[in-house]
């Protein structure tokens, strides 16, 4: 079992972030490089202190994996995948149709009670009303050009 302390993981994250920007900053030259380079030095300095803090708090720090064990990965994972599908469908299906499907399917998938025809009917009507309100606000009210599915 690997144990990773929270403060140490924070310090490692800081290092990874700083390295990421350091690599990106190599291609920048001249005046445009000044602020990124100053910031990289600042980030390195803070990172050193964070490592010191991680060592100082080693005994009182808690294990990240112990916390993750209690996290409902399956529940969040399913909804997260539906959300990814929603973002991917936004342009092909249009914002309104994909939002309708996302609200309907997302809420049904996460419903804590067993699904009944009544729940599905109410949710469908509610999703339609919500998307209609969005259309009324954005497309009709504010005049924003929202990508839409041609049949919708």
């Amino acid at each position, binding site marked *: 079992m690997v144990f990773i302390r*929270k403060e140490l*993981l*924070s310090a490692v*994250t*800081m290092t990874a*972030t700083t390295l990421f*920007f350091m690599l*990106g*900053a190599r291609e*920048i*030259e*001249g*005046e*445009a*490089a*000044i*602020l*990124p*380079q*100053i*910031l*990289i030095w*600042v*980030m390195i300095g*803070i*990172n050193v*202190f*964070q490592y010191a*803090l991680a060592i100082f708090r080693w005994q009182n720090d808690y294990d990240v994996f112990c916390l993750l064990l209690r*996290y*409902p990965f399956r*529940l*969040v994972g399913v*909804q*997260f995948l539906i*959300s990814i599908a*929603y*973002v991917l469908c*936004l*342009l092909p299906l249009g*914002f309104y149709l994909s*939002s309708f499907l*996302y*609200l309907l399917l*997302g*809420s049904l998938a*996460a*419903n*804590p009670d067993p699904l009944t025809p009544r729940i599905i009917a109410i*949710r469908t009507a*509610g999703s339609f009303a*919500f998307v209609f309100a*969005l259309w009324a606000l*954005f497309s009709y009210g*504010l*005049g*924003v*050009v*929202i*990508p839409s599915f041609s049949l919708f």
Partner: protein
Amino acid sequence: MENLLNALPEVFTWLNMLVLLTASMGGLFFGAMPGLSPTMAVALLVPFTFYLPPTTSLIMLGAVYTSAVAGGCLSAILLSIPGAPASIATLLDGPAMAKNGRAEEALYTAFISSFVGGLFGVAVLIFFAPPLAEFAMRFGPSELFWTAIFGITVITGLSSGGMFKGLFAGALGMMLSTVGYSQISGEPRFVFHPDLASGIALVPALIGFFAVPQIIDLMRDAHMKLVKLEVKSQSGVLAKSFRQHLHMKKTLSLGSIIGTLIGIIPGAGGQIAGLMVYDQVKKMDKNPGRFGTGDPEGVCASESANNATVGPALVPLLTLGIPGSPTAAVLLGGLLIHGLFPGPDLFTKHADVTYTFLIGLFLAQFFMLLVGILASKYSHYVANVPNHIMFAAVAILCVFGSYCVSNNFADVLIMFSLGMIMLFLGKLSFPSAPLVLGLILGPIAEELPPRQHDRQYRRRPLQLLLYGLPEHRPHHPLHPQPHLGHCRRNQVQPHQTRRRMLRSSPWSS
């Protein structure tokens, strides 16, 4: 005073009244929903400000802010979960009152106390901000810049995740602001994908940082069934609550004053104010044992204090550009979008907009009270939207809000990407407010004034100290090395103009 009187007719328009009413209702809803914070409410509404006049936009954001803070009491009292962090102290007496069959009284007490505290806080904002802004007129661009940097350090110092993480988040925010073509030399920086060429726009970043992590939290709690206490409406309770407040003058005064003082301090928030006032009132009471058992005075102490922080949190923001809270940081974004730069100019050049906003914020307290009292009767509808519906609805609002800023789908992707990064950082206790501040301050840091005021700049001791850091660089900003292609690179692409407008420097003008 003259400016205030001049602004009065501007506030009382049908549009402003309608916006005040709807924003108060929306803010109350967001505040009442556990998992939806006031900061997120304001962040989600920032895109709408593009389509409204500046005054109306600011009134809307202010009204949402104040109502969302007050609305947190609904779920704190009925669900024993604070809807907003500021309502933590309300948990000590609110749910106990509800369990004793006095939920309606607890809700009325909370809203009336919030109203009194909020009015006091906004009055302090109205009367103290202009003199402070007058003092700030002595500041040059560089002083204002370093004041803002000081603001970041104060906020990060007080942030919950720890000072180092807060400072790192601030630096990371500034680093993110450099993504895209440099405003100075036109060189590409950290353009890992063509969609990043024009940089990270403020609004998708605001929504991503503040809303996306909360959506994931809503997903986590989607199966949660909340046990909610029903509110049994009784006649005469409202009048009784108003009468009770006449006997709680001391608590109201203490809550309003301490809440105001804490609100002015950048980084301290409504939760600190609420807990501190509750503790003080309890200590000063002859019978402290009654607190925690369902006493209206406990609710009064907490709610008057947390809403009293709303107005004063805007004092350092409007006068010095230092946001007093994460929500104020988002409001700063709202101001910049309309070309309103915090500082003395707000009270001179843009006095019409600023004073109308201040009066609007004052009126928002009345709307909050009205909507709050009505919501108390129907609170079983207000705080009862389940998480399994809410997460999808909020995600959809995030998508539409990010997209409609510049009709660019890349903004939606950037919003989600930043949100996922913030989710990970948030789990490690990196705060989001310094990230946003860094993102706002980054372009300003690039346009430091020394190029134009080199000699004057070198004379100032503070700047001299901070100036020493880049002094030893071979390509110093004060002595830029001319290089080939400079002019060509400086040409701004047409699609970049709007983003640059959003990212223009508050202190460069």
